C-alpha cells in the first residue's frame, strides 16, 4: 500500500517536473493567456453586453485551449514513455500496470489542474479588474470545465492504451466534439424517430456510449444566469468519476495484455 502511494507520488513529481521543463506547455499557456487578453479587450469594446460577452468568449477560448492541452498531455503521458522506451525501466520494477496507468493519470490530472487554475485564475482576476462580478456560478462553470478536462484525459488514456499517438489524439478530439453535441444529437434522434428512420437507433446507441460532455458545460447557465444547485455538482462529480473510472478500467484491460518490445 505504502509502495503504491510512493509510486503515485513519484509519477506525479516526474510529470510535474516534465511539465515545468516542457516548452510546449508554456507556449500553449502563453498563447491562451494572450488570446484571453485579446478577448477581454474585444469584450470591453462591445457596448452593454460587455460582461456577458467577456464571460462567454473568454470562457470558451480558455476552455478550448485547456481541452487541447488535455489531449496533448493525455496522449503524450503514455506514448512518450512507450516510444522513448523509458517504460522498460518502469514496468520491470515492482510497479503493476494498473498503478502505472493510475499514477500517470493522476499526474496528468495534476498538471491540467495547475493549467486550469492559471487560466481561470487569470480570467477571474481580469474580471475583477474590469469591475465584473465573479460569483458562485462562475466557479461552478470552471468546475464543470475541469471535470470535462478529466474526462478528456480519461478518453486520451483509453485510446492510448491500444492505438498510436496520432489516432489517439484524433479519436479523443472526435469524441470531445461529439460529446459536446449531445443535445443536438438527441434532437436529431427524436426527429429521425418521428420520421420512422431507423438511423435513430444508431444515434441512440451512440448517445448511450459516448461520454456526455455537454452535461458539464455550464456556459449557457452562466450566460443566462440560471443558478445551479449542489445537487447538480454532486451529480456531475459522480458522473465524471464513474465515467473516467470505466474508461481507465477498459483501457487497463487492454494495456495489461500489451507487449512492450
Amino acid at each position, binding site marked *: 500500500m505504502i*509502495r503504491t502511494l*510512493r*509510486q503515485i507520488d513519484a509519477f506525479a*513529481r516526474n510529470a510535474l517536473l516534465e511539465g515545468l521543463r516542457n516548452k510546449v506547455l508554456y507556449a500553449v499557456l502563453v498563447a491562451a493567456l494572450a488570446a484571453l487578453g485579446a478577448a477581454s479587450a474585444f469584450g470591453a469594446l462591445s457596448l452593454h453586453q460587455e460582461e456577458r460577452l467577456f464571460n462567454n468568449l473568454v470562457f470558451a477560448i480558455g476552455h478550448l485551449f485547456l481541452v487541447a492541452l488535455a489531449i496533448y498531455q493525455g496522449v503524450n503521458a503514455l506514448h512518450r514513455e512507450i516510444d522513448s522506451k523509458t517504460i*522498460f*525501466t518502469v514496468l*520491470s520494477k*515492482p510497479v503493476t500496470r494498473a498503478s502505472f496507468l493510475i499514477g500517470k493519470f493522476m499526474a496528468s490530472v495534476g498538471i491540467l489542474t495547475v493549467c486550469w487554475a492559471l487560466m481561470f485564475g487569470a480570467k477571474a482576476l481580469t474580471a475583477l479588474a474590469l469591475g465584473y462580478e465573479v460569483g458562485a456560478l462562475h466557479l461552478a462553470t470552471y468546475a464543470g470545465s475541469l471535470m470535462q478536462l478529466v474526462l478528456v484525459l480519461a478518453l486520451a488514456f483509453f485510446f492510448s492504451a491500444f492505438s498510436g499517438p496520432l489516432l489517439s489524439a484524433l479519436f479523443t478530439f472526435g469524441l470531445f466534439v461529439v460529446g459536446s453535441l449531445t443535445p443536438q444529437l438527441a434532437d436529431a434522434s427524436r426527429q429521425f424517430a418521428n420520421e420512422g428512420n431507423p438511423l435513430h437507433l444508431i444515434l441512440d446507441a451512440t448517445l448511450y456510449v459516448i461520454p456526455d460532455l455537454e452535461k458539464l458545460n455550464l456556459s449557457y447557465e452562466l450566460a443566462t444566469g440560471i443558478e445551479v444547485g449542489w445537487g447538480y455538482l454532486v451529480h456531475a462529480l459522480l458522473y465524471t468519476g464513474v465515467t473516467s473510472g470505466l474508461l481507465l478500467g477498459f483501457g487497463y484491460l487492454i494495456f495489461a495484455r500489451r*507487449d512492450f518490445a
Partner: protein
Amino acid sequence: MSDEIVLDVQDVAKTYRVGFFRKRVDAVKAVSFQIRRGEIFGLVGPNGAGKSTTIKMITGLVRPDRGQVRIFGMPSTRVAARARMGFLPENPNLYPHLKAGELMRFYGGLLGLSRKESDARAERLLEQVGLGHALDRPISKFSKGMKQRAGIAQALLGDPEFVVLDEPQSGLDPIGRREIRDLVVDLRRQGKTILFCSHILPDVEDICDRVTLVHQGQVRETGYIHELLNPDVLRYELFARRWTPELTDTLGDRVLQRFDIGEVSRVDLRGDIDLEETLALIASAGARVESLQPQKQRLEDVFIRDTSDTTETSEARP
C-alpha cells in the same frame, strides 16, 4: 553456488507482427535455461538472435507466446518477483528532463523506498558507477556512456538479488568496460545472481560461470565455460629473430604460416607438435625465440563455429 533456481526459462517463444500486413517475425523460437543462485550467467549470440526479446520476456515486458518464465519460482508478471530483480535494458533511455539525482529519486519512489533511503542509496550507487560528479546534471546532457552508467545505477537501486544486464558495456570506453566487469564480479561477491548479456566475449569468458549461446531464436549451446571450450592447444604463436627459410623447410608441416616483420619473424606452429623437439630444432638452426604463446580455443571461436551458417545477422527467417 547453491542449487536454488533463481531464473527458470522454460521453452519460451515469441513471434512479433510487423508492418501493415502483420508479417511474422519469429524473434524467439525455443529458448530454455536455468540460472542458479550466485551464478554469473552469460547470454550470447549474434545480432538479432533473440537475446533482448528473451530478456524482455524474463522481465515481464513481453508475454511469451509459449512457455513460461519463473523468477524465484514466481511468474515474472508478479510484482513480488520483480521486487527482487533489477534490470538494465539495452541502450537504456532515461527521462531527459530529469537530473541524475531526481531520476534516482523517481526510481526510488517506484521501488517504494523512502526519500531518505533512496537518496542515500542513489548517492552511493552513482558514486560507484562514476557519476558522483553529475548528480545535478540533466540526463539530456549526458554522454552515451554516462546514460549507460545511470541505467546501471537504476538497475541496482532496489538492491536486487537477481540482476539482468542487457549489454551493460555498450557505449563504454575501455576503462568503463573494465569497471562494469569488475562491478559485476563484485555484485556476485555480494551474493547476487547475474544474467549478463554481452557481445564482449572475452569478458563473458572471464567472468561468467556458464553461458547460453542463442542463434536464430534457438539455444545452440549451454554449459560451463570450461566445458564449452576445448582445453587443447590449437596452435603456438612464436616470435623469433634470425629465422631462416631453411628452418621453415626443416620444420615442415609443423609450421602453419610465417610472416617476417623486419628483423622479427612471426611463426604459427601447429598445436599438436612435440614442443621440446621443435624448440631444439629452432635453437640448433641459430634462431632466437623471443616469445611463445600457446593459443587455446576462445569463446569467440565457439561462437563463430556455432553461428557460421549465416553470413549477416541471425535475423529470424519466415
